[in-house]
């Protein structure tokens, strides 16, 4: 009597195990589909983003005095610049420009008026100080000397 009861229970457990196995199989198939086709309509709300976030490690690594992610020089105010300036545009737009404090302030004003830049508050001074210290204007005259010439033998 008890034996039968026990066997019944075993069978029940077996069934449950099979069902669990089946569902986990279905789940893994679904998972595979999602992995291979992340653009499934049910995941259309930009579900691909987490795929990237996992690999973003040491985001703010510095090597040889350069903030690797942006190419900006490591100095006082670096992260304030990174956080406020590189959301909309590339840091390359910063590093290739060399302006006076007045011009940087004007540029910030222009970005606020036309490009949806927020009020920088006390950070503005930190940012402008960083820029004029690390990317000061260079006097170039009316024509610079040709530099960085890569000499080669002309064959013809």
């Amino acid at each position, binding site marked *: 009597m008890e034996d039968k009861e026990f066997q019944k229970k075993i069978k029940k457990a077996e069934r449950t195990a099979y069902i669990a196995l089946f569902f986990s199989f279905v789940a893994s198939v679904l998972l595979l589909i999602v992995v291979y086709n*992340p653009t499934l309509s049910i995941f259309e709300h930009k579900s691909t983003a987490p795929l*990237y976030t996992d690999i973003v490690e040491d985001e703010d690594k510095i090597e040889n005095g350069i903030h690797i992610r942006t190419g900006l020089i490591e100095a006082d105010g670096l992260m304030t610049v990174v956080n406020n300036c590189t959301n*909309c*545009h590339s840091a*390359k737009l910063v590093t*290739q420009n060399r302006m006076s404090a007045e011009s940087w302030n004007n540029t910030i004003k222009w970005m606020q008026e036309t490009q*949806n830049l927020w009020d920088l508050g006390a950070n503005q001074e930190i940012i402008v100080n960083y820029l004029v210290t690390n990317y000061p204007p260079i006097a170039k005259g009316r024509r*610079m000397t040709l530099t960085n010439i890569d000499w080669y033998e*002309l064959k013809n």
Partner: protein
Amino acid sequence: MKRRSFIKKAVLSSFATIIGTELVFGAKLPVGYIPLGAQEPDPFKMFSKHKDMVILNNKPWNIEAQAHLLDDKITPNASMFIRNNGKTPEEINVKTWTLTIDGESVQSKKTYTLADLKSKFKKHTYQLTIECGGNGRSEFTPAAKGNQWTIGAVHCASWTGVRLRDVLEDAGIKSDAVYIGYHGTDTHLSGDPTKEPISRGCPMSKALQDETLLAFEMNGKDIPIIHGYPLRLVAGGWPASVSGKWVNRISVRDQVHDGTKMTGTAYRVPCNAVAPGEKVKDEDMCIIESMPVKSLITYPKTGATLKEGKTLNIRGHAWAGELEVAKMEYSINFGSTWTSCSIQKPTNRLAWQHFSAAINFPKKGYYEVWARATDTNNFSQPMVLPGWNPKGYLNNACHRIAVKVV
């Protein structure tokens, strides 16, 4: 760094396998969509550009050529500069793409599909010189803000499309029309959907020229996405910003178009010459129209050394906005004396012209070969920088290459 780039590459390539080739991946994926630092797709591959092209900016994309990359008579895609103001359009469907002609001065608002444009109007092909208004900006002192272009923001490709004039006339233009303004599907860097990254235009006289096209082919193929696929306005000889990309609307205006980058100091220079660094009021700035006379030595690449007694054959291109180049000269003594180059007629109006010369050097030493073009109005390129202006436009100073005779 090494490990990071390895991870980047691995993720990139696995992604590429999932959705197709790397090119498709690169072209379709909006750049701003990739979290900064997580991965950096190879722009040279993504846009099929030559490895010597120089990236000034990656958000938005701004990439320029170097003189020696522009040696071809008709510039191939690989050497064409990219100047984008916003994010590349995310979704482009040629089947549903339309061009709408609207504005105060159009008889009736009209919409055309790409198929309409291609079947209804005659096709035309022109080689057109298109130069960024800020080409050469990097040389100005005091510096002008913006992308620091050197000399490579110019190209002359072959464009095929329908005349803007034919389409505007089909829609009907009112007599009070003075300007057109274009609108495209690129999106603002801030992500604000109410803002346009750029919406410029030109006076009706330019819009109605034979060579002003609504182009759908570049060098005989579909225009690459980064250059404005599937439809682009091309207006040779004027600042490249007039040649709007991804165009889906043209407004015929009864006033000077007031779109983004048409107002304030954008693509404008002081109406009267100013001292370097001088402040100029917005109302004293005038819109740039035809670009000034200019030339480039495209062969040899700067830095050539040659044996004493050898002749140096140089070649390059010259252009003059709406005008032609009448005379081309070179100097090997910093402008003390000038010698004529031979110069060809343009293939069609607004195409650049090809020049060449054979140069003999008197003795060993360091030389600079300077090139100077003169237009049909007798204006030549200056040897020093031309008039300073707040935004650093229109630097047409002579190009030069370094040569050593040993």
